[in-house]
């Protein structure tokens, strides 16, 4: 059985473990800073959605460690494959957070999408588990080219039920490609609990079906997430094949802003798990280590607020995309005749007034990076 990898205690019953090799104070601060940036983005996005300035938004409150840790383990040349739950992860790779906000605002084209190759970040994947074979194919290509890079793909425990998960895991292990499958087991797939998703006690148990190494980590601990991913990526780049990582955690918030968890689960559970949430817990660990103090902490919080506030401002300054955006980028080369006809058909009618779905408003008050006030 896999033991749970964990470094960060809770300052109470769960003991701290020493920082693993390969991370110095600067690294720890950067991992923490990423947590804060992600948290700030998430809370701001929830607030914007409440104000009618974004559409339905899939929050990730509490799951920041599953993003900050693995991302920090990547080299810039590694490719990452996010789902809707890691929508803002590209921001840690040069994708403008304004682009991500614009995507949630329902903008396409140059507003809401980005060039995946420029950032080595695949487009945010909405259909469950379907991006996993892409990571495998990309890793195959890199291996064919003898490029020492790896592909890292996130997915939820619910995704493990889909055929595409299975096919991707199988191809990856048969081909021995440099891919890392990072499962965020937050115990819920919308209203469906883990126990209705699989008969196994863990997701790592499924690695046996592919003869693949697997690691179980505390998904609220960014250092554990870093360590497991780092080891897996190194093995992958070195020709050792794929790895399955399961980050055990809990979806503290709703599935998305349209979801009401009270319909299907006991809030008390979420409250219990919340005590282990990564931002405060990591801050405590770094403080106990003497790496973080109040000054640094508020500087990091301020910087994150500024970053996200700028992104919000940039997103709000974007023009509503024109009608022609419908016909943009469908093909890389050439446009079928019907596109010109479509544009003509549109030009002949008034643009519906309701086409502007979300009214820009005065910028909202800035959030607080540490306090989970975006959720309850």
């Amino acid at each position, binding site marked *: 059985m896999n033991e749970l990898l964990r470094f960060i205690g809770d300052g109470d019953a769960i003991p701290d473990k020493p920082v693993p090799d390969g991370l110095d104070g600067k690294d720890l601060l950067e991992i923490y800073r990423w947590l804060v940036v992600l948290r700030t983005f998430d809370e701001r996005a929830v607030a914007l959605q409440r104000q009618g300035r974004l*559409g339905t938004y899939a929050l990730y409150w509490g799951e920041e460690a599953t993003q900050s840790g693995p991302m920090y383990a990547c080299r810039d040349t590694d490719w990452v494959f996010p789902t809707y739950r890691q929508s803002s992860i590209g921001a840690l790779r040069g994708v403008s957070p304004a682009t991500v906000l614009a995507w*949630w605002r329902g903008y396409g084209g140059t507003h809401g999408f980005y060039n995946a190759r420029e950032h080595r970040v695949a487009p945010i994947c909405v259909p469950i588990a379907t991006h996993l074979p892409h990571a495998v194919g990309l890793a195959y290509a890199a291996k064919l080219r003898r490029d020492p890079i790896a592909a890292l793909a996130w997915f939820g425990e619910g995704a493990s039920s*889909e055929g595409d998960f299975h096919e991707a895991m199988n191809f990856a292990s048969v081909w021995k490609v440099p891919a890392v499958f990072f499962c965020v087991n937050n115990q819920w797939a919308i209203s469906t609990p883990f126990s209705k998703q699989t008969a196994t006690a863990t997701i790592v148990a499924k690695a046996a079906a592919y003869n693949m190494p697997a690691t179980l980590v505390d998904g609220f601990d960014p250092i554990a997430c870093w360590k497991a991913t780092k080891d897996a990526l190194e093995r992958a780049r070195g020709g050792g094949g794929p790895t399955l990582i399961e980050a055990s955690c809990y979806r503290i918030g709703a599935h998305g802003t349209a979801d009401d968890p009270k319909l299907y689960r006991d809030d008390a559970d979420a409250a219990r798990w919340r005590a282990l949430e990564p931002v405060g817990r990591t801050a405590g660990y770094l403080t106990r280590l003497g790496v973080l103090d109040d000054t640094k902490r508020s500087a990091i919080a301020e910087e994150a607020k500024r970053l996200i506030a700028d992104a919000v401002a940039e997103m709000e300054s974007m023009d509503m995309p024109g009608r022609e955006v419908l016909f943009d980028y469908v093909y890389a080369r050439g446009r079928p005749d019907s596109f010109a006809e479509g544009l003509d*058909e549109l030009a002949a009618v008034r643009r519906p007034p309701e*086409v502007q779905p979300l009214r820009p408003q005065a910028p909202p008050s800035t959030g607080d990076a540490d306090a989970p006030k975006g959720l309850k």
Partner: protein
Amino acid sequence: MVEALNLGHHQAMASDDRVLLMGEDVAKTGGVFRVTAGLLDRFGEERVIDTPLAEAGIIGSAIGMSLYGLLPIAEIQFDAFVYPAFEQIVVHAARYAWRTKGQVPASIVIRIPYGGGVRAPEMHSDCPEALFAHVPGLKVVSPAGPADARDMLLAAILDPDPVIFMEPKRIYRAVREEVPQEPPLDIANGNGAGGEILSRARIARPGDDLAIITYGPTVPMSIEAADQLSRERGIEARVLDLRSLYPLDVAAITGSATACGRALVVHEAPRMAGIGAEVSSLIHERVMLDLEAPVMRVTGFEVPFPQFANEDDYLPSVDRIVAGAARVLDW
């Protein structure tokens, strides 16, 4: 329409214990659209099943249940998530009767909330109905209002063949209408009168100057467009709500075209090889001499459904329907 569908589920499950509901998040929450609310409490978790997250598994196991004599209703959470189940639907559900001398059809109903207009994220607004209509062995239907939704759902459950039941998301909460409590069909006794409502088109608005032929999400706005044509041009357009996309009610389609002499087909799905192409072809093939103008189409464009900020640019609007009507009328 949500309430009407909910009522239909309750009535079907209460009157026949072979009926069973399965899908992602249909039980405990009552579905992401609340269509199946209250069923778990009433009928228990053996008959109201929150499945694992796997659409091929859902449709495949529904087929197996039907093989044993149950009448499963399988919900696909959103249109674009039916694709992983495509193989099960087209190679098995569509061919079970055929592969058993007609004796063991896959008696399942596949409910799919579909189409745009609700400001949903990527991949939550597709109109895949033509894909299913093209595949032999399926029935494909779509109600356009609450009363039809309840009655057609009951008829679909009664129907021994696999029925793809397309629910226009846009109409879920938009259209209100009184639904008689008493169901028109007696499920437990296999009252088959429901065949009619599943397969016969309905005149949603009378008129003899132009036939606007449509279904599902674009019915309400076609009626609005017809009203506008009446006000602005004194043209009385008939709106024909197809209800069934396969098989098509050919007599009603050609009859309306002949009666009006002019026809326009409206749907939200892309134009290329859509339902509109078939309707247009049928009319020209059969009654071209009765036409004063070619049949035209107002449809979704041949592009991916846009991100939602632009969805109103994509969707056939009242204005686009009126403009399309003008192309036919002024031809």
